[in-house]
């Protein structure tokens, strides 16, 4: 599903974020990217949805080299992926329903599809009765659920999560992980960058560990350390 071949990316001459990184993620896999801050986890995610382009090497998604993708095709690549962030990135002036509907609106889905799919995905994330709340009326965990609903409403092939439990207490984080696990079990590939030891150890999935831009460990059913 995702393949990186000898990818090097630096932000300036001094800072090299990734150095000659190669690895592959199969369809339906659940992969943790772990490592300290600045080790290149977020850069790896940003390469996968073409927020960044590598200097050397290539990034393949669903059989296509996305480095060669013309700028005008990038939106269509992104429609096959969902994104989740540590800070949720919800739109504060929109309700929960509108935040999720927004993802469908901007890709031109007709209204009857929106009316049907948004309640279904809110049900899935356990917020069926909170569609008309605003983000500030929700807890952190609930806000993250909204952002997962927004990422998943389009049934993407791939879900990219950047520290999704970083702002949550352990109990709430576990709830989020169970939700991601459920989404993964529908066949969606999940790539999650984290340094949350607890959730990695709890899940026992593939772990790719980075240190200063290099992969130092790639382990099936791994733990954080």
């Amino acid at each position, binding site marked *: 599903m995702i393949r990186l071949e000898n990818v090097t990316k630096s932000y300036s001459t001094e800072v090299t974020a990734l150095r000659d990184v190669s690895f592959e993620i199969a369809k339906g896999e659940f992969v943790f990217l772990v490592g300290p801050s600045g080790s290149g986890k977020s850069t790896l995610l940003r390469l996968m*949805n073409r*927020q960044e382009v590598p200097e050397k090497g290539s990034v393949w998604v669903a059989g296509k080299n996305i480095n060669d993708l013309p*700028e*005008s095709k990038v*939106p*269509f*690549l*992104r*429609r096959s992926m969902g*994104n989740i962030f540590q800070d949720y*990135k919800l*739109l504060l002036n929109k309700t929960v329903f509108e935040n999720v509907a*927004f*993802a469908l*609106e*901007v*890709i*031109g*889905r*007709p*209204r009857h599809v929106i009316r049907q799919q948004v309640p279904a995905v809110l049900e899935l994330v356990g917020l069926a009765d909170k569609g008309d709340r605003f983000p500030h009326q929700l807890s952190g965990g609930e806000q993250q659920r909204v952002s997962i609903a*927004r990422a998943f409403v*389009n049934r993407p092939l791939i879900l990219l999560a950047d520290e999704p439990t970083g702002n949550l207490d352990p109990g709430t984080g576990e709830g989020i992980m169970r939700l991601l696990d459920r989404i993964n079990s529908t066949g969606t590939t999940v790539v999650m960058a984290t340094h949350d030891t607890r959730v990695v150890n709890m899940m026992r999935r593939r772990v790719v560990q980075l240190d200063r831009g290099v992969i130092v460990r790639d382990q099936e059913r791994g733990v954080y350390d």
Partner: protein
Amino acid sequence: MLARISYAFRETFASFRRNVTLTAAAIITSAVSLLLVGSTFLIQRAFDNLLTRWKGDVELIVYVRSDATTEQIQLIDDALRSQPSIIDVERLRYLNQAESYAEAEKLFAGDPGTLRLLTPENIPSQFKVVPIAEDSSLVRELGEQFRQLAGVKEVAYAQDVFDVVSRVSQFIRVATTAMSIILLIVAVGLIWNTIRTAMFARRREIEVMKLVGATNWFIRIPFMLEGLLQGLIGGVLACGGLWGLNSAWSGAVDDFNDTELAALVVSDGYVSSVMLILLGIGALAGAVGSGIAASRFLDV
């Protein structure tokens, strides 16, 4: 498709409501600068009209001494009429002293000092001559001959006045054009800035849109519509202002209906086409300015 169109319009109007002050500022600036651009067109046109009228009208005036005898005047008249190949005999006009004085009262209305020196008794009467010869040197030659005639006080060529007016008009044309270009740039800048501020306030929204796969045009179009609307509203205001200015001006010039100044009136047809141009410039500048402003935020 319908969903996209309704989305674009909803976003446009929401943004209008959110940024009332900035929107008003952009509209007013574009209105003022478009009004100036329009006025430039009208001023240039008015001077062109005036010049054309002067060109095709009197170009030679033979002033007759106030003490000239009736025979001398008759002689000059005959001499002029004997040159049908150079002057338009049909349009040859003689203003006697009373008529000349009446004309002078208007011409020197703003110069009472000069007017006080003139009386219906000492003012020269005049022949207003319309040349038909294309070659102005022929006209000059004829004028020199008349200067020799008894009773002729002076021969004046409208060409000289024409040159002065022409230079003044040239200057006004350059000055007003420069001014309107500067103002137009200012207007585009302000609309651009309005949109940029609106976009900065919504950068989070734009980032989310980009990440869920909205195309750049999908994001850009509501902003361009907003700019287009601002430019268009500014254009409508400018048109209203221009119409008012032109009516006032036409009314004022009406008082000089029987003088050359009447040529300064611009026809309504021309005013209408200038208005259409203003609306076009307003809409285009607004949309393009916003489109450029938007592009800077789309690089996610």
